[in-house]
């Protein structure tokens, strides 16, 4: 069977799998937001039934969120399996075929992690499960990118663009910051303690909250919660404050990226467009983070915050990949210039140049 790099339907299928993965992240987010992670006490069965035959009339309360999450996860597992097989049979780039295998192994591991979180009562596994979900989403998005015709067309741009402003590194730094923020967020959510700080932008009415034993005791005394939240601790308050500071750093980093990219390449250039999208997502994400607190951690808002976080990370990953593909480091350009014995300056795309 002939392998090729030109597989448009495979590319579309990969994009569909990425969309399904985003839906799964939303479903998983709803599970944690509703505190339903343990609503189905067994795994892989559901209240003793084969999960695919569990009656819809029993999908009540937390069971609805946890059970549908498992069903959607099974669907994404199947989609990923087909993607991996299809890649192996039809894709000529060996490294991309192996990315498909990694995606398959990752989704299987993710499923097992989810089950172990339930049967072993380990919140730490839940944090790892949430983090791996984000990485898996980025992986599938990257596979879809590599399969796209647009990706193959980027080769033509490569020798033309110099990374004068260190954008390749800035994209990477912003993406790493977002990933660290996501891990923080997952850690916060899996404390199962509700909102450690109930107000924003202040924290218990102050710029920095009191975190001594007596103050934390008073926060717990005063809180009237509707769910069985764990008590607030000073550690959780510290986590949330760090998450808030992380948001400021990310906003600055991505805003810087967008400004530099648009200044150098223009708003119509693919990198300019990606950065603008990235910055837009971060603005929405900051608002959603604030809204999560203002709404008393409304499950829908908190889950939207998780989903936009996943999108922000994936755009960062894609922007980093694209930047590394089309931007030549300034040092490499200088070396090339020296080798051409004083020849013409490197051609550079002007803001008027798009794809």
């Amino acid at each position, binding site marked *: 069977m002939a392998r090729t790099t030109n597989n448009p339907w495979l590319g579309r299928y990969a994009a569909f799998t990425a969309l399904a993965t985003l839906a799964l992240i939303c479903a998983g987010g709803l599970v944690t937001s*509703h*505190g*339903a*992670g*343990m*609503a*189905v*006490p*067994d795994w892989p069965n559901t*209240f*003793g039934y084969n999960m695919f035959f569990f009656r819809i009339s*029993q999908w*009540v*309360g*937390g*069971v*609805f969120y*946890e059970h549908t999450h498992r069903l959607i996860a099974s669907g994404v597992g199947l989609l990923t399996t087909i993607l991996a097989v299809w890649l192996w049979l039809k894709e000529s780039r060996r490294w991309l075929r192996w990315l498909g295998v990694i995606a398959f192994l990752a989704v299987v591991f993710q499923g097992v992690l989810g089950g172990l979180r339930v049967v072993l*009562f380990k919140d730490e596994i839940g944090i790892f499960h949430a983090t791996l979900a984000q990485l898996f989403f980025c992986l599938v998005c990257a596979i879809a990118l590599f399969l796209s015709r647009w990706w193959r067309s980027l080769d033509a741009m490569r020798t033309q663009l110099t990374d004068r402003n260190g954008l390749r590194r800035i994209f990477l730094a912003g993406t790493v910051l977002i990933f660290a923020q996501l891990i923080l967020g997952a850690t916060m959510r899996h404390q199962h303690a509700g909102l450690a700080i109930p107000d924003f932008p202040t924290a218990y009415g102050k710029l920095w909250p009191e975190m001594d034993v*007596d103050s*934390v*005791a*008073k926060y*717990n*005394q*005063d809180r*009237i*919660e*509707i*769910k*069985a939240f764990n*008590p607030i601790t000073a550690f959780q308050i510290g986590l949330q404050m760090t998450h808030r500071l992380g948001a400021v750093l990310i906003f600055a980093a991505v805003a810087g990226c967008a400004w530099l990219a648009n200044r150098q390449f223009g708003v119509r250039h693919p990198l300019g467009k990606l950065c603008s999208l990235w910055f837009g997502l971060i603005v929405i994400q900051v608002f959603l983070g604030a809204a999560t607190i203002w709404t008393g951690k409304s499950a829908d808002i908190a889950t939207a915050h998780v989903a936009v976080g996943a999108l922000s990370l994936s755009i960062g990953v894609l922007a980093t990949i694209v930047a590394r593909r089309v931007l030549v480091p300034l040092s490499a350009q200088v070396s090339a210039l020296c080798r051409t014995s004083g020849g013409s300056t490197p051609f550079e795309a002007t803001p008027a140049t798009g794809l």
Partner: protein
Amino acid sequence: MAAASAQLVSSADITGKVVLKGTPKPEIPIDMAADPKCGALHSKQITTRHYVADSGGGLANAFVYIKSGLTEKSFPTPGDAPLLDQVGCEYTPYVVGVQVNQKLKIKNSDPTLHNVHATPKPGSANKEFNFAQPVKDMVSEKAFPAPEVLVRFKCDVHPWMFAYVGVVEHPFFAVTGKDGTFKISGVPNGKYTIEAYHVKTHMANPGATQEVTVTGDAKADFTIELK
């Protein structure tokens, strides 16, 4: 030895009242729309039960127990099993006490499924468990091998459902009623430290304890003041 024997022969009651001083935030109405069968079981709005106090401040659901003074004595495990019921998609009672290794009956009296999820404190020798009770009138039994005040029970299907179980090594405990009063019976003569443990206030009031000398019926009143 003779003194210990004399203590075991005579016994008395410790009665008292736990009063809440201060005004807590209002309880939150519970929306049971997530499971229509739960909503159908209530004709009026129910709320959370963090601070249940009467007009005089009598605080319900405080777990009152002898914290120390009994260390040299061991007590037989009772054969009866207190009941923690799930009625109207609420745990009843909100706070219950058992002895170490004493069986606790957990029942589903509702026409809907529940899961029973006990979450002992981190580091506790009691093990976390989570099991299904999908059918009405299902009864399960569990016991705790280690003392712990208090073990939280919750239902993850219905996140507003939670209750607390106090586990102690002896039979000298009680849960305050709606008027905040309690009675601990059969207490041997001796000098004890008694604690009134309330889930919401115990962190801000770690010293809701007092020394009580029992030479006959004794009285112990507690005032828990909101900080």
